[in-house]
């Protein structure tokens, strides 16, 4: 059984149909990439899955339970975390406070402190800057904070929206390495990326999105060799 299953999803923005009947599955332990050009609807899909946008029709199931109408603030308690596009860290809160916000729905203080230690271990830079306001961090550090904050909810699946956007090549490599680490730690990953080459290099499977529809899906290694993908997304 798929961990996350999206069936015939249709999302409208006013009269414009942004998502035109998209279906996909994410199995436990996988890294799934959702690739496509700017405006293809990748972010809309993630925001619909986590309840920030309501779909017009379609079905979203998580671990066998329908969550299509579950409000966003309840989704995280089910074990799904979302690292939003543009990071959206709380700029006026300190790094530490941002991380604590990530554990908002958890009660056990000791477990939360344990998670903080884990995040600091994964991102030593965040520990160095724990009392700094998040708005003063560099883009790459903010991306780490956004990921750390999402991990603080102890998710079963983590949805990442354009984690490499606007980062220097060194940071991009670091972020992708961290995504692999997170995955190796047992967390399922749904990754939305414009950097298709990087995304395909770490993903198990991928879906290719074009103007609101999935046009192709396969093993990432197969897609890497696909001529149309090479031309359109890998710049070869």
């Amino acid at each position, binding site marked *: 059984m798929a961990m996350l299953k999206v069936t015939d999803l249709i999302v409208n923005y006013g009269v414009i149909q942004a998502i035109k009947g998209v279906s996909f599955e994410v199995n436990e332990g996988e890294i799934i990439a959702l690739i496509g050009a700017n405006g293809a609807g990748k972010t809309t899909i993630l925001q619909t899955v*986590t*309840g920030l946008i309501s779909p017009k029709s379609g079905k979203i199931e998580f671990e066998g339970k329908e969550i299509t109408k579950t*409000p966003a603030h*309840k989704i995280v*308690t089910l074990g799904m975390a979302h690292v939003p596009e543009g990071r*959206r860290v*709380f700029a*006026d*809160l300190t790094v530490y406070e941002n991380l604590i916000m990530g554990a908002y729905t958890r009660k056990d203080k000791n477990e939360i402190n344990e998670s903080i230690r884990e995040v600091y271990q994964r991102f030593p830079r965040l520990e160095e800057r724990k009392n700094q306001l998040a708005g003063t961090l560099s883009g790459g550090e903010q991306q780490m904070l956004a990921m750390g904050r999402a991990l603080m*909810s102890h998710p079963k699946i983590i949805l990442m929206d354009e984690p490499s956007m606007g980062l220097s090549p060194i940071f991009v490599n670091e972020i992708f390495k961290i995504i692999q680490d997170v995955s190796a730690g047992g967390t399922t990953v749904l990754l939305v990326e414009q950097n298709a080459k990087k995304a395909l290099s770490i993903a198990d499977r991928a879906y290719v999105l074009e103007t609101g529809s999935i046009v192709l899906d396969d093993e990432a290694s197969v897609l890497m060799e696909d001529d149309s993908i090479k031309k359109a997304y890998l710049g070869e």
Partner: protein
Amino acid sequence: MDLVNSILEQLINGLRTGSIYALIALGYTMVYGIAKMINFAHGDIIMVGAYALYVFVGLLGLHPVIAVLLTIVVCSVLGITIEKVAYKPLRNATPLAVLITAIGVSYLLQNLSLLIFKATPIPFGSIIRVPSVKVGSLNISGITIVTLVVTTVSMIALTLFINKSKAGRAMRAVSEDKGAAELMGVNVNQTISLTFAIGSALAAVAGILFISQYETLLPTMGALPGIKAFVAAVLGGIGSIPGAMLGGIILGIIESLSKAYISTQLADAIVFGILVIVLLVKPSGLLGKLKIEKV
């Protein structure tokens, strides 16, 4: 010596009025921070608080402490109700629609009170029974002492709540980014309700202190302190909590000094003149941050 004394006296008066403005300004600034709207009905919560106290003490004869607590509850519930009924349906509407609605709620509250309590001013003696204190040649009234103590305690408690508690942190997160806060599991509607409840509770306290000083009830009594507290919030930087406290106190002192040494008639004009100057010179206010919209 006389001049020094008189200035000190005016400063203390200003501090007293200013700390009441500060309490009210906190409501404006917190609601603005979280709901991005100016709640122009906020001043009328002061009026409702004053009338509620009158009903509980003057008409029902309850113990003042119980009456004060009930007054705070009444105003908090009213604040939550106003948000749910009038503002929540407009959360995605244009700011102008929300502004007009807030003014409408303000008139509704004033006219309801006019309907129930009529237009004749009702005299209502202070419930504060604290003797005045002599410091040197200065005489500080009991009401002044109570006002300063109550407002200081309220402001410290609020600051601790906002900065240290889980709910306070959630409020700061929601005021920055509702969507991201929701992704953390924060119930945004509940957080907005809580903000209105706290703002209205502070307005209730302000109303009680205000009526203890002026001892006359009028359906429109909340309008002027409400609008001055709004000026105080803008002066301090709308959205900033320390800004609202600072703005309120500065405004109270300026008003008191203007009344004493310039002209009683001109005092209000000076206060509102400050709003004009702030908007011209530093639109973000003394402690406000100019938000740069990132695209």
